[in-house]
């Protein structure tokens, strides 16, 4: 693969990651959000694959394959099961409405570009220029956790944060060690499982998956 294809493939995949982050804020239907997340996971895996092919790094290619399997297939499937418990699977009333949240996400992306200037200067490669996208994905994920009410949206936000971190890790370093990547993925998987249990408990206790119900536990 020549340099031009490499950098445009990389830009395309990374752009898809941030685009999916915006989609999760734009759509209200939870199943569409999960679909976007699944696409994002695949795009993230492609970033790792492209990098691995370019650097002839077998470990990175393996990681890419694993990321596609875990974030593109396993985790979305688990999330769909959570959604199956809740009949009203639409994010009906987020704390900030959709246009405003898109504007907010745009602002966060600017912030990400501003904040990573010095990091980008340190990694003067075509991969390094994409680092702000990873940070932006992270911030958008955090933002969506703050403004969404449903438990499932919270999980999605957390996964966005994780994907953002993974993207920065792929782009900024010469590949994360396999062990670290596996450990991080396992952590996320565990968090998803725990949140799923929490969601099931919530829906059986309150018949809805709104996190606002938890406020009643405050002493």
């Amino acid at each position: 693969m020549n340099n031009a294809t490499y950098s445009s493939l990389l830009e395309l995949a990374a752009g898809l990651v941030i685009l999916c982050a915006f989609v999760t804020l734009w759509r209200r239907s939870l199943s569409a959000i999960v679909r976007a997340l699944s696409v994002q996971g695949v795009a993230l895996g492609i970033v790792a694959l492209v990098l691995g092919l370019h650097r002839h790094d077998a470990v990175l290619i393996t990681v890419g394959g694993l990321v596609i399997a875990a974030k593109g297939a396993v985790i979305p499937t688990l999330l769909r099961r959570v959604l199956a418990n809740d009949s009203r699977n639409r994010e009906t009333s987020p704390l900030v409405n959709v246009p405003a949240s898109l504007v907010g996400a745009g602002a966060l992306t600017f912030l990400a570009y501003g904040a990573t200037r010095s990091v980008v200067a340190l990694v003067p490669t075509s991969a390094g220029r994409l680092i702000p996208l990873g940070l932006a994905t992270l911030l958008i994920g955090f933002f969506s956790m703050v403004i969404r009410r449903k438990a499932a949206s919270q999980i999605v936000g957390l996964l966005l944060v994780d994907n953002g971190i993974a993207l920065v890790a792929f782009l900024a370093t010469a590949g994360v060690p396999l062990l670290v990547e596996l450990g991080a993925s396992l952590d996320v998987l565990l968090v998803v499982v725990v949140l799923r249990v929490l969601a099931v408990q919530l829906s059986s206790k309150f018949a809805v998956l709104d996190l606002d119900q938890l406020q009643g536990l405050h002493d």
Partner: protein
Amino acid sequence: MNHVSVLISVLAGLTATVAGGALPIRSRVGVAVLLTWVSCSAALVAAVSVLRSGHAIVMSTSKILPLTGISIVLTRLGAVFVLAIVMVALASTLYWIGYASHGLSTRSASSALPLFVTSMILVPFAGGVATFLVLWELMALTSLVLVLTDQSRREAARSAAQWYAVMTHAGAAAILLALVLLSAHAGGQTFAQIELHARHLSGALRGTIFVLALLGFASKAGAVPLHVWLPKAHAEAPGPASALMSGAMVNLGIYGIILVGNVLLGGGPVWWWLLVSALGVLSALYGALYAATTSDLKRLLAYSTADNMGLVLIALGASGMFAASGSRTTAAIAMVAALLLMFNHSLFKGALFLAAGAVQMVTGTRDLDRLGGLLKRMPVTGVVFLIGALSVAALPPLNGFVGEWLLLQSLLHALPSTNTAVVITVAVAVAALALTGGLTVAAFVKAMGIGFLGRPRSEEASNALEVPATMQLGAGLLALSCLALGLVPMLILPSLELGARSAQHIGVSSPVHGWISLHLFGLRGVLAPSLLAGGLFVALMATVLARRVSHRRSRSWPALAPVEPWGSGRRTQTVRMQYTSTSFAEPLQRVFDDVIRPARDLNVSPAAESHYYVERIAYRTSSDDVIERVIYQPLIVAVRRWGRLARKLQNGSVHRYLAYGLLALVIVLVVLA
């Protein structure tokens, strides 16, 4: 050789801790005590050999603590403190064997007590800031566990433990700050490096470090106004633990002040030591006053600890002032006096707390108004308490007397200094000593007279039986050493002088000398404790004989009707006609009414038939700690208000918490960008 004994001491202490936690209940205490004894004896061997040879033990390893490693240095000064701690530890662990059946044989207690003893013994061994702080914290935590072990008074113990935890950690924070500042500016964390460089620091920095360290260490020593935890924690801790805390742990507060003030910073200007003396005067007076008015036996002892530590601080401050104003002989004598007062306090306060623990174990109460007549029922414990009380009241022929004599000599012989503040402080200190002495005598006449003499005031007190032999032996050991050091102070004084010299670098050799009669170097004071004791004994015998003779002569007089003394002519006397602790302290309380401001409660219930006939009168006074009420309660209220404000931040909404996180992240990024 010395290195081996240090290692044995550490290992035996740790094994005792593990054994206390792991062994079954029957063998637990025995094995733990045996191993603690091994640990104590090994430390004793090390300390004695350091005192003899003057070569400090120096060991270090980089394996255990990351970054700094452990460094162990035992100087002669540290050895003196090890000596005092080991004495109390040997006696209280022996006592613990008998006491254990009384709720102190739980796993937590059996492993915390040896660890507490070991960490206390090791604190003077610390040769670097990191080692010192680790051991210091270990000592605080294990003693905190011990305060909580008495299950029969859970509520009171919990509140006491809370006070203790807050005070000890606030103190530890101040110490941490002082030592970290010191090591940062001296460019190294071992005490040897700091000692080398600390002289060249600026005066303001040295002053800040000293004041911070003084605050931290004085709170451990129980100096007023940082004493509030003392009457709570020392009273609630079980017998042997309270003896260890009050007899040994408070010493380490004094050690810390000498370590930072004299050794690391190498002495300082007069105002440092004026501050120390002022703290001392305040503690001595306040502690003695509250000891005289409280009616809880162990609270009384704890307040008396504040009083005695006040005396040590006066001596320490005097020594520093004299050294700073150039009179080296008096400075050396005052330092020896400080160490002697500290050492004596360990012995007699250990004995007193062990005896008080025995009383509490047998009768289930510490309230003097419910005790009485215990001397007949618990003869050994009673005699131990008597010896301790005489010693704390500084009466000859006991060791407390020698210490206060030495302190007074150094104060009275202070050369007319050019510094007016020093002259005034010395005069005030002498006056305070006199008042404190009187109040202490009153407090212990009360404790002894109400608690052990007279007739029992409650069922429990009249059914009291003597405690097991190990407890008698443990407490008796300390009482006997009080007597021995009172008769022949030279048994310990040379060691203390060596310790004082290694702390001060003044270079006056043997400021106190003479076996039979103590002579002071360069001063005119002479004291012959054994001759004094002999004289007292002869006088006592003569009085008894004279009384016998006059008694026999009076028999030849016509027979009189036998009436009980102090009975106002009544034929029968009831228990309630005796003085109580409250009534004994009442005149004193009246004199110091403005200071103590006791809450008085007088309830007169008239008979149903007429108002002029009274059925019952209930009179109750309670004297809360005035410093606690005036300083600490408002502080607690303020902290609580602040906490309530902080709670407004958290309203239970997950989104709000997440928003805090995002906001923090964004702010950090904006600042960095």
